[in-house]
Each structure stands twice: as structure tokens, then as C-alpha cells.
């Protein structure tokens, strides 16, 4: 199933199950979403549940908050993660804090979907679309208490986790790697709900743990396959959820291998995998044989066109990091 079809499948399943679930965004109705994530949904559910909004991110994200207070479960689609900054105040000031501002008695069941990132793997639609259409912005939200942040890296995880996100009574930011929208992944069980807060051992290994997020997960697996031929056994961990972080799965792996690399598409400084790195250093220090290495994007706005590869990490950067860590 394609990654984008997994998104639609999950939304449709939840919308069928609960008439309070709404989808709100730009071009989500007749257009079916800029990338097709909501194709056909307005025909099935009508305009009272699949709602097009004017280009007003602060307006419609805040409207989503009001709807959530009144018994609805809105899914708020931002047309690109880069545009979320226009509605950022609504997310961090209103949505993230509504519960705490009301004696922790209020729920804010909002899902905020962010198509992020550039085209990583040569597959999919977005190819080097420039600095304002390529950003990985999860760290803006992982730093804001009151939000949960998930980053499913494949269709199976997307289906199971998107459904959990829609059912969650807390606000959940869903990071959707838009370069992977067109990519096909095996899905064994379409109905399996995957809990938020649970990571996964994607590939077992014994020499080094690569904790990778989003598009870097399959790149880490490619690196592992390449390095297996050289006798380096790479374990790949996908946290799948950033907040709350599955510390146990990560630390169990690092305790086993003694070496850790964290890998993200997002820019290096202040990125979320720096949080993972600090957590590993804090909790697993005595197990470490080498410093925790970081693979991340450049601290610069991402160039347009093919030059994007100069700012976004790929297979070369992951393989290099593994070799250096193992050689330490």
C-alpha cells in the first residue's frame, strides 16, 4: 500500500467509525488534497465533514481547537509542514496548553498532519522543492509540552498510528514524509492499531544501533545491508513516536550493541535526535564503547532543485557515521 493511501485509509476508517471525526484544510474536499490524501472522502462524507478552508492557517487551526472543545475530533491538514508556522501560535499557545490552562480537565483531541521533508529516496512527488517546501519541523513541536508527535516511516505504521492519533484525546502532530507519499510498503494487517509511544526494532544487529526517524529508517536499512557484506552488523531502531519517546526500546538496543548513531532528515542543531542522543548518554553511558554520532541535515535553508542533496543526509552520511563509530 502506498504511504499516502495508508493515510487516507486510516482517516476513512476512523471517519466511518465516528461521525465526529472531521478533516479540515486547504483543498481537502473536491481536490482531494494537494497530494490526494483525501481523494473521494468528500463524496463519502460530505462538506460538513470534509471542510475546505481559506488560506488562513492561524484561522483554521484555531477553529479546529474550538471544534475539538465542542465534541468534534478534527484532523487538521497543513498543505505543507512549512506553512505550519503561520498557525504556530494556535498550536503552541492554544492547542498545546488548553488542558493545562483549565486545571488539566479539558481534552483537545486534534490531529495536525504535516507533509514534511524533501524527496529523499528518488521516489515520490516532491524533488528539491526549495527551502520553503522541504523542511522537517518536528523539533518545533517536540519541544512543546502538551503535544504528542509521531513520525511513521512506512505504510503499516502510518495506518496503525494515524488511527491511534485520531482516537487520542490529546493533540497529536503527525509528521508525514511527503517524498514517500508514492512509495509502496508491505502492510500485513490493515486493522492493527499501533499505540503511540512504542518504538520498533526494524532490523536486528549486534555491532551498532542506528536510531533513525522518518525517511532515514529505510536509508539506515540500506546502510545495514551494505555493511553486512563488510561484517558490520547493524541494528536499526525506529522510535516511530517522538513524544512520548520509547526510551526502553532505544536503550535496550544500545545496551546490546554498545554503539549508537541517531539519524534524522531535519537540520542538526536542536534537532530531535539530539534529544535521543542526550537520553542515551544519560541512561546508557556505561554501555557505550563510542560517542553517540548524529546524522542530520545541514544547518541551512535547503537549496532548491538537485542541490538539496547538499543539505539533506543520505546513504553516504549514514554509512560514514557507522564506519567511524565502529572504528572508534
Amino acid at each position, binding site marked *: 500500500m502506498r504511504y499516502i493511501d495508508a493515510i487516507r485509509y486510516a482517516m476513512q476508517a476512523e471517519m466511518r467509525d465516528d461521525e465526529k471525526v472531521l478533516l479540515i484544510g486547504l483543498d481537502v474536499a473536491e481536490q482531494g488534497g494537494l497530494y490526494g490524501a483525501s481523494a473521494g472522502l468528500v463524496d463519502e462524507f460530505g462538506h460538513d465533514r470534509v471542510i475546505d478552508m481559506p488560506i488562513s492557517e492561524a484561522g483554521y487551526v484555531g*477553529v479546529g481547537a474550538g471544534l475539538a472543545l465542542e465534541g468534534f475530533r478534527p484532523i487538521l491538514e497543513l498543505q505543507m509542514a512549512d506553512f505550519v508556522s503561520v498557525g504556530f501560535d494556535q498550536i503552541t499557545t492554544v492547542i498545546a496548553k488548553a488542558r493545562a490552562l483549565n486545571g488539566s480537565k479539558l481534552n483537545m483531541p486534534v490531529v495536525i498532519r504535516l507533509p514534511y521533508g524533501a524527496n529523499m529516496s528518488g521516489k515520490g512527488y516532491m524533488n528539491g522543492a526549495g527551502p520553503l517546501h522541504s523542511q522537517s519541523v518536528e523539533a518545533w513541536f517536540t519541544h512543546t509540552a502538551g503535544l504528542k508527535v509521531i513520525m511513521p516511516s512506512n505504510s503499516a505504521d502510518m495506518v496503525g498510528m494515524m488511527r491511534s492519533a485520531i482516537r487520542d484525546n490529546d493533540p497529536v502532530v503527525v509528521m508525514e514524509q511527503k517524498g514517500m507519499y508514492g512509495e509502496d510498503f508491505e502492510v500485513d494487517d490493515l486493522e492493527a492499531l499501533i499505540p503511540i509511544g512504542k518504538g520498533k526494532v526494524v532490523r536486528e544487529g549486534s555491532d551498532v544501533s542506528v536510531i533513525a526517524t522518518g525517511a532515514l529508517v529505510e536509508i539506515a536499512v540500506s546502510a545495514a545491508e551494505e555493511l553486512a557484506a563488510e561484517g558490520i552488523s547493524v541494528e536499526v531502531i525506529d522510535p516511530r513516536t517522538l513524544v512520548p519517546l520509547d526510551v526502553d526500546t532505544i536503550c535496550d538496543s544500545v545496551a546490546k550493541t554498545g554503539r549508537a548513531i541517531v539519524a534524522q532528515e531535519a537540520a542538526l542543531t536542536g534537532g530531535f535526535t539530539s534529544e535521543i542522543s542526550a537520553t542515551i548518554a544519560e541512561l546508557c553511558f556505561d554501555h557505550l564503547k563510542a560517542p553517540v554520532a548524529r546524522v542530520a541535515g545541514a544547518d541551512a535553508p535547503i537549496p532548491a532543485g538537485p542541490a538539496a542533496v547538499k543539505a539533506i543526509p543520505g546513504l553516504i552520511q549514514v554509512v560514514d557515521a557507522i564506519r567511524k563509530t565502529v572504528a572508534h
Partner: protein
Amino acid sequence: MTDKTSSADLGGLTSDQLRQMHRHLAAARLAELRVLELGFIDHHSQMGHEAIGVGIGSVVNSTDMVQPTHRSGVALSMTRGGYTARDFIAFKHTGQPSARHQQPGGPRTLFPIALIGSGIPMATGVAFADKLKGSDAVTVTFFGDGGANEGAIHEAMNIASANKLPIVFVVENNGWAISMPFEKSTGAKSLADRGPGYGMPSASVDGADLIAVRNAASEAVAHARSGNGPYLLELRITRWRSHAEVIPDVRGPAPESIDISGDSVARFEQLLLNEGVMTAEELQSVRDEITAELDAAVTEFSGRTAPSLDSAFYTREQAWQIAYSTPYTPMNWLEK
């Protein structure tokens, strides 16, 4: 935009209704004066905004949603019912109950966001919910001339107009946003001028004229309730005191009294006297009753503060429980 600057009548109100409104007005004013006397330096004065709260509070019902401000919120909640002068004194001393938060069993109230402007899209979402549900409830959201310039309010008004949402946007224009005078903050001569830009009817009304406020609010709420979309109501008064007691006012120290034209309470009392609705003795009697309530409340609550907290730093679990509704997941590695 219609320009309504004076009331010609008593709003079609009965004697009892007028007395009731006076009582709310007086309660809001006397409670305010007592709070100033008690010296709460973080207090954001409500002086001069009373008629806005009472006038609007008298035309909404308990199923309508209001999102009040720190200026007219107490008067508004007193008028809607379920909030008293004693409650306000208790709130100042202990932090509870708030006139601007939903009270159990109370009329529908939407919590404020301290960044004025940021909460208005949320109020617009409540109106959207009412429309989706086919409810005939109206939402009334309030902000000042300062907050009115926030971009989020523009977006909210536009969405409300495009979708014909049942919401009234009330601007309490008191001429000042801390030290920014209204004339410098915008090129518009009246904030009601913004309504037509959205295709939204609007009015600019003397906010110190209780009958005029009530009449205008009545029209605005009826319009929103009719399914014809939102309404923008500017209520103009003069800010009496500083933005907050602790902040020096660039104009200088606050006057003890202001011209009756700007004093909604004195003005309404004069109207009641002139029209023979109440005598001077009756007005004083109302003040005395309220003063006694305030005295009792001060005796009850003075010396009380908010419950003291365990001062130990939040654990991860405690922090989680404040911010999230789902259970905290203990992890082995975190507990070692």
C-alpha cells in the same frame, strides 16, 4: 455600518428589568472599587467597561457561548447569573472562581487566552461547531482595540464571514493598548469600519450608554442567531485607569472620577432617577446591600491565599499529567 450614538428610550425594558440591570452594574463597579482599595497591584481595571458586560450579558442566554475579557468579564458573568461580588473577592484572594472560565452548571463560557487575539479563532471554532450541529446558539467573543490588530482575528473574522458563522465579535475600544493610543495603532477611524471588508454588518456604539449597548447587542446577537453570519460590534469608552495597576499610565495618575458621559454607572443612575424608575434612596440602598456583601466577602477571604503547593520540582510523571490526558508510561530505563 450603522452609527448608533444615543439611546432614545429605556430599551423597552420593564422597571424590574432596569432595576436588575442597575444591580449588576453597581455590583461590578463596587466590587471593582473594593479590589482597588485592597491593593491588588496585578489587577487589570474594569472601570468604565461595566455597561458592556451588563448590556451584552442581558441579551445572551445560558446556551450561548461567551469568551469574556478581563475588562467586562466580571460584569458579564454577574449579569448572566451564577457569579457574584463575593465570587470576585474570592477569586482575587484564592484564584477561584474565575468569571472567565466555565463554572460547573454555569452558563456556557469559553476560557480566555492571555495573548489577546490568539483565542479568537478558537471562539470561531465553537461557532462553527454550533453551525454543524444545527444549534441556534450564538458565540460572543471579546477583545480590545489593541488585540484587534492581531492577524489571527483577521483570519477568524474572514472564516466566520465566509462560512456565515453565528458569532459576534465585540471590540471594547477604550482608546488605549497599554501606552499605544488607538489613533496611532490603526488608520481606521472606527474598528466597525472593518466589518464591511468581510461582508459583515457592524456598528459602533457608545459603550458607556447601557441601553444603547443592550440595543446594539440585541441586534448583533439576533443577526448571528438568524443564520446570516457574524456581526462586528465596536463599543467605545475611555479607559479610566492604567492598563494594570502595577503599570504606570503614560497619561499620568488615574482620576478619581470622570465626566458622567464616560461613567456608565453614574450615567445609568442618572437616567433611572430622571425617568422616575428609582429614587436616590433606592439607589443608595442597592449600594449598601452590595457593600455589605463585599464586607462579608473580604472578612471571609482576606488572609486566604491559593492552597500552598508541594515545592518539590515536578517529576516527569507529574509534568506529563499536567499536560496530557492519557496515562504516563513508566519506563524501566527512566526509573533506574
